């Protein structure tokens, strides 16, 4: 399979990584070494916040491109401001656009999301929106000029995997831009399934950062993304409701009661 290209930029991997939730900041380096991600997301917060800073130097040491997000934004206006702050602070016009409408489910507010996407595209951003697994919304986002769409497999941080594989396949069929499965990945098989369903990449955060051993899970997800990509390219067999023998029937040794042997 060819490399993943988003907005004309070739990424080194189909595994994208979020950085939130690691129990210790010093785990980030080993996790990056194990995952070798194509992009790494960061958030933008006030300097007086308790969130740990200093992440950029680690990312630069590993040569990983940074994808700032608008996590926590509840309106298009907030998301546009956060994206502008990120562009000024980090020198990138790429943004993972998140506008959530519910703090319990963290489900995207797709009305605000499309509005924010249109505004950010008009301001020259390369927009990768976190969205629902709705192919109609995905098409709206692609039509708005988004460089990719990032449907959720299941709620953020839930680890429930891909709850509706048919919807993810419908999203893949609905848009011509890359599809990145975002949110819900809990373990390696979830990531492999996303690629098998036709997604172009997977973004995982909590699956790695809150695993018992983040470094080993990062390695597992890298292998899973490679395996899922290879399996999709290989072309899986169609599902059947009945058995189909793989050994030949011709020439088999038979025995019936009363025969001489």
């Amino acid at each position, binding site marked *: 399979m060819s490399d993943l290209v988003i907005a004309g930029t070739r990424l080194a991997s189909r595994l994208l990584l*979020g*950085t*939130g*939730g*690691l129990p210790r*900041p010093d785990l*980030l380096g080993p996790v990056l070494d194990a995952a070798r991600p194509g992009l790494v*997301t*960061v*958030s*933008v*917060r*006030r*300097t*007086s*916040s308790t*969130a*740990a*800073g200093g*992440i*950029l130097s680690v990312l630069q040491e590993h040569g990983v491109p*940074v*994808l*700032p*997000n608008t*996590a926590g934004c509840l309106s298009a206006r907030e998301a546009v*401001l956060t994206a*502008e*702050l*990120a*562009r*000024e*602070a*980090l020198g990138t016009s790429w943004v*993972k656009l*998140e506008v959530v409408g519910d703090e319990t489910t963290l489900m995207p507010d797709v009305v605000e999301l499309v509005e924010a996407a249109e505004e950010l595209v008009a301001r020259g951003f390369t927009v990768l929106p976190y969205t629902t697994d709705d192919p109609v919304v995905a098409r709206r986002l692609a039509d708005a000029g988004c460089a990719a769409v990032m449907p959720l497999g299941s709620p953020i941080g839930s680890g429930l995997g891909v709850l509706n594989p048919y919807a993810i396949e419908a999203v893949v069929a609905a848009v011509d831009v890359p599809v990145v499965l975002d949110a819900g990945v809990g373990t390696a098989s979830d990531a492999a399934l996303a690629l098998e369903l036709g997604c172009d990449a997977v973004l995982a*955060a909590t699956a790695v950062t809150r695993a018992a051993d983040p470094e080993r899970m990062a390695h597992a997800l890298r292998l899973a993304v490679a395996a899922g990509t290879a399996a999709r390219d290989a072309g899986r067999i169609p599902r059947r409701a009945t058995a189909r023998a793989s050994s030949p029937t011709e020439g088999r040794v038979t025995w019936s009661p009363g025969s001489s042997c």
Partner: protein
Amino acid sequence: MHLTLNGVPLDVDVTTLADLVGPLPTGQAAAVNLEVVPRADHDRVALADGDVVDVVTAVAGG
């Protein structure tokens, strides 16, 4: 002059944004009244009584 910096009210004697936040390290950005101010303009943007200033940086997330 009464300002709000990152959500905290304070009284300071400054003229420009640069006076307040100084030279920002790489990876940080500032906004005045929710409008991003490019780094090159920090010493040209005058602050006024009641302005709301935010300074942000990248943190682990997403």
